[in-house]
């Protein structure tokens, strides 16, 4: 006796597959960068400066996407940059998610004092403009991977906290929570076993979106030279360099920009795709 809803099948849709494909490829390339990258990403050779990509006259074999003004291989730098971008996405995204979602769940379900404190904290936090805040933070903490991640976590936990809190409140008002309580489940047990599974799809979507945001933030910080050491390959740093010589060597700007764009787009499309896929089943 299935009713209609049980039978609805949701097509994953091309955007879910395409974005998953790009991200999967990127993960493989990033992990394999030491073996895949054709050149040393730091090796400079002023004789080979501003070589164009392979299909343009004057290209050198082996430098597929050309070189920058210092003669460093653009492709190799993008691949090594992907390692940093993905590390930041994964670590910062996960930490932000864990902290924000836990606080949101507590505020939304336990209510009372924890809600008061957490909600007030979120309000205060949200009053700061995020990009400025992150630049300020990294400026204070000093550049480096740790500071980037700390900055992202410190700024973005509120996004999780707010959304998860609202969702946990809605779920907490449902009759199944009362039934669980009558059956003798404690508050923490109810939160972990009854509420959390219902909030998980939302958390998953937020996490994916957050990873995209982390990639952008890392790029912005690298762009303003607040990321890790200046000559290490980062997408943001490459974009900053490429910008200055865009008329002589557009490829130095365009390829990292493209990688950044595709990655951020993929994360957000993956998030949206997952939302479409999971939402109707659980509503």
């Amino acid at each position: 006796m299935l009713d209609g809803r049980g039978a609805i099948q949701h097509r994953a849709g091309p955007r879910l597959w395409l974005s998953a494909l790009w991200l999967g490829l990127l993960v493989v390339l990033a992990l394999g960068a030491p073996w895949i990258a054709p050149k040393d990403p730091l090796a400079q050779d002023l004789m080979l400066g501003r070589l164009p990509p392979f299909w343009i006259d004057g290209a050198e074999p082996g430098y597929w996407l050309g070189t920058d003004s210092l003669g460093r291989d653009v492709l190799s730098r993008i691949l090594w940059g992907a390692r940093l971008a993905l590390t930041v996405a994964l670590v910062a995204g996960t930490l932000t998610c864990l902290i924000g979602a836990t606080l949101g769940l507590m505020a939304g379900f336990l209510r009372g004092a924890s809600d008061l404190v957490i909600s007030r904290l979120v309000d205060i936090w949200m009053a700061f403009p995020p990009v400025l805040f992150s630049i300020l933070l990294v400026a204070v903490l000093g550049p480096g991977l740790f500071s980037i991640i700390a900055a992202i976590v410190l700024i973005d936990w509120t996004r999780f906290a707010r959304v998860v809190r609202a969702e946990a409140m809605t779920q907490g008002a449902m009759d199944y929570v009362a039934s669980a309580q009558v059956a003798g489940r404690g508050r923490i047990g109810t939160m972990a076993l009854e509420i959390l599974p219902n909030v998980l799809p939302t958390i998953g979507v937020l996490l994916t979106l957050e990873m995209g945001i982390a990639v952008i933030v890392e790029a912005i910080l690298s762009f303003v030279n607040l990321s890790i050491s200046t000559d290490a390959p980062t997408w943001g740093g490459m974009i900053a360099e490429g910008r200055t010589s865009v008329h002589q060597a557009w490829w130095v700007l365009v390829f990292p920009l493209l990688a950044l764009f595709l990655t951020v787009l993929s994360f957000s499309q993956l998030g949206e795709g997952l939302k479409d896929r999971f939402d109707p089943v659980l509503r």
Partner: protein
Amino acid sequence: MSYLSIRDLELRLKGGGRLLRRVSLEVARGEVHGLVGESGAGKSMIGKAVLGTLPRSVEIVSGQILLDGTDVLAMHPAARRRLIGATCALIPQDPLTALNPAHRVGPQITDRLVDILRWPRAKAEARARELLAEVQIAEPERVMRSYPHELSGGMRQRILIASAFAAEPKLIVADEPTTALDVTVQKQILKLIKAMQERHGTALLFVTHDLGVVSKICQRLSVLYAGMVVEDTDVRTFFRAPRHPYSRALLAATPKYTDPTHSLTPVPEAVIATVRAEVAEADRRAGA
């Protein structure tokens, strides 16, 4: 001796007004006790107080809730939760939100037997199948493997009923268990609850708006107005000769007991004024 006895229960909103005004009522073993009254009268609050699921904004000012002679309000919260988990159950109002959408149906019935009552899982599963069959669900096995959203409202309410009876509770609180269903399903579900209650000898605290329903399944009833019990009597006496003017007005407002061709008679202003005065008098005495 009655199984549930509520004595002078007084609830108030934290920092606000009274929600229950010295409510007392008794439910004997195996008896069905109706709670009627208009929306906001405090019917659900009584059920929640018994089951220990009051919202945080509500506080118990005074009174006792005895389950088989033990005052649960005086117990340690953890011990109380265990006692209530073992002896009481809830049939909730809205079958659509009363099953957890994230879990399959089977575990939702069996978990409580396993977690609270420490039954072996196999025994709990056998019990769940037996009960689903008892509430006339055709393929218990398949239903137990389904997610709630794959089942119709009527089926979900049957499952909730099965689940409520699973641990052989002594007392079930049913809070308007049929209001969220269509009329045709309502009748079946009501019959089912009645049949299950009789077969299992469970005491039932039955919250409803509908005096017609009360006449079908209850032995006793309490009429509530603004958190005050205005009449507590057995059903026969109530329908033959309601004592309180508010009860009489409620009865007159129930279509079945007046000429069905007439539209509903609202409770007359004068009657409302009388109960309001009584409530005010009670408040004055409580304040003094």
